[in-house]
């Protein structure tokens, strides 16, 4: 019976293609809810049942059997996925409203269908353990998201982006395939469980790095990230929310999954992961700062957050390596909790950014401004998201970050000199990331929502409908919940990890628990205090006569909206410091001496991605070679015969020289 339930949505999903456009959305919603229900129930059972024993379903169809297994790790990711997928779907109703008239029904139904399949395939990735089914689910995930990106494929740019995305995903797949095949060539079976056996009698680093590369392309670690900042903006906002919120986390899932099987060299692996993650974090946020495109900015922040998660995981691996359970626990729990947190605030941010796009018809920060006056609720939500993503208390981002900080500071004094230095590097980078994130989001929030509109054509008119706000409120509430009652989420997570990595929890974990709960309390205190102060202020100001006036222009009275501080100028300080990495191109003509009456000037900056440029150069080069090689189809029949002639002569010569 259960088996049928599990397989049911797969077949139901095809209904979406055939229902008329009226009922399409609700059919999709119904099916997705079904999926969520069916998968969440066992997941919840797994997490909260004593001992976190995995649940296993054998789906035996007449033609072959598939094994789905939900252990703690999968259960955790399943819940995260389900939540974000559903919020995304709820949001999409309002968001897709304007497109109804523009898109052909076929396109819309394909869109909904692929959305459902993205959800399904992600769950498949989380539940399948055998190689081939896993890989199929993995690629289905890529394909369905690809179809979702293609939603606005009339734009050539979107098309290019989508192709680029799919190709890179495919390269990732090939890496994974090779890794699995290597395992299979040795152990004879192609599954995650077989890895344990492989790792037990081979050097672990090589294969792990292969897997890591394969998964890192999905997760968007630098330098494998180049698809990410283009794919996210190209996709519709609810899709970018889901992609950035959960889909790239599948890479993280894979890495952790492989890590559970790794037997030796854990310290080295941990250090490698730590280094890559730290670099991704810092570069990611730096690149984010200089972006003009709001969604691109958020996309680069996904890279940054993946970096933070990676730092946590690397720390955990080191902890396992040096048999320090506390370190391992702190690292992994911090990393995984950040997975949850990021899925929440990143989807929230993408949704609210989408609302801004829908209201103002541009994502260009320099065109926006003063949105808060017309869309206060969206502004508030975006602000919440920003605070969370900067890891500021009392929101959820801080909890995961402080866990990682704790682990890193613990690691300082436990281990060798090198480890301590590594740890300090990680601490510094984490601190830098925090600072830069604040820099970036003060920019994003300040320029987009505050001040006055910078262009007449792109001013917001009204707040988006409640249907679009509701899912954001859901996410926001959950974020506050995590921030103030961290233990609710931390303790089950710890249970999962203890079971997953066979960590024996020691007493010091109790003190950690205490600290985290105190953080929650502090959050309460902070909010209470703020409220109190605000009341006093309100009460005091009530008695005063409040006057309204223009902003003080330092004596200059006729300021225009275009004189406001722009995003570029705000980012300029960092852009200047990080010039060698960011390679921001500037277009401006300085006024020359002989120009007595200077003509009108224009100034523009174009943020570039060094890695993308490098990759493009490489690929173009290879393509050029291939195109040059393809010269055979000359149309002259004698040439056609010539090829055969040469080929045979070649073979015979080789034969004669005993080479063949």
């Amino acid at each position: 019976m259960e088996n049928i339930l599990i397989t049911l949505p797969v077949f139901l999903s095809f209904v979406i293609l055939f229902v008329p456009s009226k009922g399409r959305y609700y059919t999709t919603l119904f099916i997705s809810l079904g999926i969520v229900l069916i998968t969440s129930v066992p997941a919840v059972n797994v997490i909260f049942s004593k001992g976190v024993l995995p649940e296993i379903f054998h789906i035996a169809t007449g033609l072959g059997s598939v094994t789905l297994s939900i252990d703690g790790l999968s259960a955790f990711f399943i819940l995260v996925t389900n939540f974000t997928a559903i919020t995304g779907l709820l949001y999409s109703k309002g968001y897709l409203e304007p497109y109804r008239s523009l898109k052909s029904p076929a396109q819309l139904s394909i869109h909904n269908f692929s959305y459902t399949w993205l959800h399904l395939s992600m769950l498949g990735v989380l539940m399948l353990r055998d190689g081939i089914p896993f890989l199929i689910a993995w690629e289905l995930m890529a394909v369905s998201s690809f179809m979702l990106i293609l939603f606005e494929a009339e734009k050539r740019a979107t098309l290019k982006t989508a192709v680029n995305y799919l190709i890179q995903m495919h390269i990732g797949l090939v890496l994974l395939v090779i890794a699995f095949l290597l395992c299979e060539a040795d152990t004879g079976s192609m599954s995650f469980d077989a890895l344990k056996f492989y790792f037990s009698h081979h050097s672990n680093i090589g294969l792990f790095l292969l897997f890591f590369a394969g998964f890192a392309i999905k997760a968007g670690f630098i330098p494998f990230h180049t698809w990410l900042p283009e794919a996210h903006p190209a996709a519709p906002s609810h899709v970018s929310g889901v992609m950035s919120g959960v889909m790239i986390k599948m890479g993280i899932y894979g890495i952790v999954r492989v890590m559970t099987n790794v037997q030796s060299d854990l310290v080295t692996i941990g250090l490698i992961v730590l280094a890559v993650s730290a670099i991704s974090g810092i570069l990611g946020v730096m690149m984010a700062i200089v972006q003009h495109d709001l969604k691109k900015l958020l996309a680069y922040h996904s890279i940054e957050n993946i970096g933070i998660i990676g730092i946590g995981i690397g720390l955990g691996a080191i902890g396992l390596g040096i048999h320090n359970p506390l370190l391992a626990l702190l690292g992994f729990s911090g990393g995984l909790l950040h997975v949850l947190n990021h899925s929440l605030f990143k989807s929230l941010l993408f949704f609210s950014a989408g609302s801004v796009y829908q209201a103002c018809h541009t994502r260009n920060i320099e065109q926006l401004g003063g949105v808060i006056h017309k869309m206060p609720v969206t502004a508030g939500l975006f602000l919440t998201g920003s605070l969370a993503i900067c890891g500021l208390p009392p929101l959820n981002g801080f909890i995961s970050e402080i866990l990682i900080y704790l682990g890193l500071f613990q690691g300082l004094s436990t281990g060798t000199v090198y480890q301590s230095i590594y740890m300090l590097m990680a601490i510094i980078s984490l601190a830098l990331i925090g600072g830069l994130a604040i820099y970036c989001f003060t920019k994003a929030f300040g320029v987009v929502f505050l001040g006055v509109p910078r262009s007449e054509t792109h001013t917001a008119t009204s707040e988006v409908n409640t249907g679009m706000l509701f899912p954001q409120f859901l996410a926001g509430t959950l974020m506050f919940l995590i921030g103030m009652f961290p233990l609710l989420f931390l303790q089950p997570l710890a249970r999962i990890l203890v079971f997953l990595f066979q960590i024996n929890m020691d007493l010091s974990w109790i003190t950690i628990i205490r600290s985290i709960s105190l953080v929650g309390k502090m959050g309460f205190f902070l909010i209470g205090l703020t409220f109190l102060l605000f009341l006093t202020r309100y009460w005091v100001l009530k008695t005063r006569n409040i006057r309204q006036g223009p902003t003080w222009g330092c004596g200059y009275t006729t300021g225009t909206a275009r004189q406001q501080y722009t995003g570029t100028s705000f980012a300029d300080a960092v852009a200047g410091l990080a010039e060698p990495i960011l390679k921001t191109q500037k277009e401006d003509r300085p006024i020359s001496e002989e120009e007595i009456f200077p003509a009108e000037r224009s100034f523009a900056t174009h943020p570039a991605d060094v890695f993308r440029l490098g990759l493009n150069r490489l690929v173009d080069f290879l393509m050029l070679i291939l195109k040059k090689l393809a010269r055979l189809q000359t149309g002259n029949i004698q040439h056609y015969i010539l090829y055969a002639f040469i080929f045979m002569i070649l073979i015979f010569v080789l034969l004669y020289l005993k080479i063949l």
Partner: protein
Amino acid sequence: MNDPGYILIFFFVLSFLAGSMVMLFRNKSLIKSVTLFFVAVHVGFTMFCWYHLDETALGYFTFDRIGVLLLSILSILTITTVFHGFIYVKDDSPKIFAIYHTALIALVTAMSGAYLANGMTIVWIFVEATTLAVAALIYHDRTALALEATWKYVFVCSVGIALAYIGILFLGFTVRDARLLHLSFASVSEIARLADPLYLKIAFVFVLVGYSTKMGLFPMHTVTVDAHTVAPPPISAFISTTLMNVGFLAIFRIYALFSATSILPFMNHVLILSGMLSLLVSSGYMLKAKHNKRMLAYSSMENMGIVAIALGIGGIGYYAAILHIILHSFTKAGLFYQIGQSYKVMGTYQLDESGNYMNLYPAGATVLLLGLLCITAIPPSGMFISEILVLKAMVARGDYLYLVLTAALLCFVMYALLTRVLHIVYSQPRGIKSELHERVNPWQTVSQFILFGMVIFICFVQPASFRELIEGIIGGLPK
């Protein structure tokens, strides 16, 4: 009466009658009915072959697994091709209509013969026959281009065939006895074991190069591509699936024949070399392709390259090769039917002028997208399985160089196909503005959906019987 020999003769006679009748008739509906009758006969014949698996008829023919398998693929595709052919040539003059169907029947018969032939010379004769039959079909449009393509195709194929024949004659020298040459494969393989390897090698090279015209493999792939450009889409579907299978089968039989001898490594190297070159050339051309059908033609070449490589790698590669041949036949046929419809809808094969297909003909666009997934071996395409198996064989043999090369080239192929097909489906044509050239009934996509459905089905479930069938085919080959 149930003796395969009679049935075989019966089949050939019936097809001959059908062909000649169609030739004489000038009434379209009559021609149609006769053709349909022939299709029915063919399907029935295929059924019959399944019941008499591994029997030989008249000594010259054998219903072995691979032959019958390809025969059944042929008869499935014959149904669809005839159906789409009716639509494609419905406006032509009765004479051309008749010629088209005669040639079609002749082609199908010849291919069936080639599949079932038991003995190199028989295979050779039927292959020659396919050349003649398909020439008439390529020339269907009666334009200067068509003439050129036909001329090139016939000429180069004949040269190739002659080379193949020389290769076959060489076998005669292996045992100084020409009578060998009309012996069945089984008996030849006995003798081949004690033969002089050098002769075998030369024979193999000649045969490979000779039949590479049919299989669309490097070095003599060139004319097949040209033929695709002008042939009616249903015929292109044939040329790059069942006809290529003929070439493949011819090479495969020789390979199987010699695989027991000491020249196996040599054959493997030559096959891999040829396959790699095909992959290289085709990927290069796909990156440059400006003509929808030529792009697909090169894609067929690329797939044949993969098959050749798989065959050369050996081990699980054999399985992969057979699987890939099967899946490629269905996928590519479906794509060509769709391209035919796209020509009707957009009135061009030129890539730049075509576009906006999603709005002009949503059903067709969906088919194109699905076919794109199938042909680029992205799950849910069954080719994903076959290509993984190829890689697996490489890993098993430790050929990491081949592994990297193949994977990289496939990525480029994928890039080329994606950019072009997506351009057709979504973006506006360059220069001209897109308008509906001719309305096409969405029901015409059903056949493609069925074909792709089969391909996708294989990705998720490979029935045990199916697996056993393929294993039975490659059973004779060295492990």
